[in-house]
């Protein structure tokens, strides 16, 4: 069966997560005809169920130029996608529980300063208390990025999809890509539901399934499938505005405007990738709960109403793959965001569009080349 929809797209994006939708949006803004192929439905996996942190704070140095550029897009997100995406900017804070941890964050700020970035700063105990009055007494200070915040993941991804569609992009949901082949300057993409699509350019934004796409073109990557867990509490009276993490342990902690508190931080359950299924590991959820017990005494009586995990991809060096394929022309990768790709969504879509329409981008993406894993 051949898809009858016409005209033929200029670009096929594989994967309807935030990165696929963002690439589709930026390409559509430039008049490129885009078709997004999504095996389930848009935002079904990591993009719909992550913690929603919009965070420059504490990122890998290679990601800092991208995260800063993306933050500028976030602060104008309504202009970009006609929806505020639930984005609120009350800062992100990484708490230091000991003097040694505080030393580490001071060194971090010095390192960024030397590179010309000033968005992170160290604060002492007094300012920490004024920003987060509920923090436990033993915390000595923190690293803070005041422009950071959080958004609503599913709503954000849907907004990108809606705007891309308004600009002419098409979305085909419910069919897994089974085959990818290039002949005579044209890609052929086949899906499990019997469809076949053609386009001169393909973007691989297939998240936890992206290694299978890459392998189709002789470009295997060491992608690990992970299932970071989150939990949410019943409503409590509003008590905190910024998103709080920790320096010495894993935590992502924030309160929604409706009073519920989201607790995460990347502790892992198990992903069963072929069944779109995750299983929680309550011994690890318990570790997360213990961290909150220690840092926010007021939360000890809070009720946990739900926990879950999304399926994501992690690369061995904890940074994503962004850029052209190393083996095939007219193929671009955008995957492996290693549990922190949400904030990068707006900019990486623009970068991918730059690469496709202009052949280059003004942001430094060399550290993310796929070839770094080649033996």
């Amino acid at each position, binding site marked *: 069966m051949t898809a009858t929809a016409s005209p033929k797209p200029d670009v096929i994006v594989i994967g309807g997560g935030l990165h696929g939708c963002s690439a589709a949006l930026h390409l559509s803004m430039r008049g490129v005809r885009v078709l997004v192929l999504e095996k389930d439905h848009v935002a079904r996996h990591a993009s719909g169920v992550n913690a929603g942190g919009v965070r420059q704070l504490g990122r890998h140095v290679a990601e800092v130029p991208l995260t800063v550029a993306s933050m500028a897009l976030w602060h104008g997100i309504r202009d970009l996608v006609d929806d505020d995406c639930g984005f609120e900017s009350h800062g992100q804070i990484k708490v230091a529980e000991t003097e040694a941890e505080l030393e580490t964050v001071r060194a971090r700020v010095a390192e960024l300063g030397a590179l010309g970035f000033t968005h992170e700063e160290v604060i002492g105990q007094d300012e920490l208390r004024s920003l987060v009055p509920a923090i436990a007494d033993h915390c000595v200070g923190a690293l803070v990025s005041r422009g950071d915040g959080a958004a609503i993941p599913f709503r954000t991804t849907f907004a990108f999809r809606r705007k891309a569609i308004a600009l002419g992009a098409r979305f085909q949901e419910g069919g897994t890509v089974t085959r990818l082949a290039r002949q005579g300057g044209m890609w052929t993409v086949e899906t499990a539901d019997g469809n076949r699509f053609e386009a001169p350019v393909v973007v691989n934004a297939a998240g936890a399934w992206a290694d299978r796409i890459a392998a189709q073109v002789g470009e295997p990557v060491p992608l690990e499938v992970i299932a970071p867990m989150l939990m949410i509490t019943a409503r409590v009276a509003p008590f905190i505005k910024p998103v709080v993490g920790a320096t010495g342990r894993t935590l992502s902690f924030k309160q929604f405007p409706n009073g519920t508190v989201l607790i995460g931080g990347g502790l892992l359950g198990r992903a069963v990738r072929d069944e779109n299924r995750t299983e929680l590991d309550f011994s690890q959820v318990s570790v997360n709960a213990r961290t909150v017990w220690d840092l926010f005494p007021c*939360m000890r009586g809070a009720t946990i109403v739900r926990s879950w995990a999304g399926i994501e991809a992690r690369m061995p060096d904890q940074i994503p793959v962004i850029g052209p394929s190393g083996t095939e022309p007219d193929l671009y990768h955008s995957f492996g965001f290693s549990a922190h790709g949400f904030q990068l969504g707006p900019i990486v879509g623009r970068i991918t569009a730059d690469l496709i329409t202009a052949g280059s981008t003004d942001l430094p993406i060399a550290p993310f080349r796929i070839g770094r894993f080649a033996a």
Partner: protein
Amino acid sequence: MSPPKSNFDFDIAVVGAGPAGLAAAALAASKGASVVLLDEQVEPGGQIYRAVTETPVRDRKVLGPDYWHGAELLGPLRDSGAVHWSGTTVWSVARPREDAPDGSRPIQIGLSRNGAASMLTVRHVILATGALERPFPIPGWTLPGVLGAGAAQVLLKTSGLVPSGATVMAGSGPLLWLLAWQYLQAGARIDAILDTTPKQNWRAALPMLPGFLRSPYLGKGMKLMLDVRRKLTVIGNVTALRAEGGLAGGGTLKSVVYTRNGTEHRLPADTLLLHQGVIPNLNLANATGCAQRWDEQQRCWRPTTDEWGATSVEGVSLAGDGAGIGGARAAEEAGRLAALDALHRLGRIGREQRDQSAAPVRAALDRALTGRAFLDTLYTPAEAFRVPADDTIVCRCEEITAGAVREAVRLGCSGPNQAKSFLRCGMGPCQGRLCGPTVTEVIAAERNVSPAEVGYYRLRPPVKPITLAELAALPKTDADIDAVFKH
């Protein structure tokens, strides 16, 4: 009572001490398996036999002989050696790991008891989680004074409480009549019953009447309905309902507005009891990953099971109304079948012994289910009460209206899970119990497809809320667990 192998390891866990769970636990333990019966309530009985050992309602004719049958299930349980942990909330059942290093396939159960969380290891679990009331969303159903008839019945059984002031009952289904009858026996005041059973249901149900004529419930049901109709005002053919408070947009319930033959009427009311049947309480099975299917006749989701109650998840069985509504007597027999199959799977009895023992149980089950199709068809709730108008709240926890769900569909949300992510409906403390069926039906109607195509929420543990403190203190070692359970 024979002690289990350790304080936290059993062959079989049975979740829920209603008729299915009581019968399953007693039978499995009587054949030598180590069995733990886990139940939230202090006393066994489930909802149907709730408080059967200690209800203050001592006059047996108030609750009726069917209720007191529950007491007969308790002796066998006591004699079987099954361990009964009352006051225990099960919040998670994890399917066996495919990748356990030693090849064993234990099932981990997360539970809370005496204010402490713990993990239990078993080799088979029988979920006997019963039914819950089908949501009955009408304008004003969130006002104080409006409650489910089932909740009201719980108050009667556990505390002997009946509503005071003007009381109106509204809805459809056998339980509504039973509660009305029980209230009459208890001397309570009921001003009116507003029957919402659609007229055309009778026509649809008529072909199934011969089956129902052989039902053991027929005689009892007729007597009960005649009794109620003789003593109470029953207003039939009610097609629309609204609860109104004393203040504009709120306050406590003051009146019930209903439509009959196209005309609106108003009744003063201090209490409105709503009921339109029960549906399987499948939250735990769903969160465990058991496959489920849409049952068109009962208009609800039910977990997929084989004739023994085995689900799609290895080592997890279902028995009773949690697998599809069949009533208390059917639940009891289904519990026995699930127990026999579990014993067989654990190698305690052979296939032949299982099948032989099952034959009379299966016959009793069939008898108990006779006439069920007639009841299901007759009491299918009207579409107006399953698919409410735009301004009716469907998700009470997050205060999401049917209109908001329809708007989400127009924005591209094709099913309950997308709507959940988009609107937060179904994400409150009740975990979709009060909105799930309605959200499915609203989306299906809006998209003009069947509920089967729209699907249901993917539910997540903890299926019952637990505190952060409990979770933080989850014992890590056997010794920790023993310490928790000995105090």
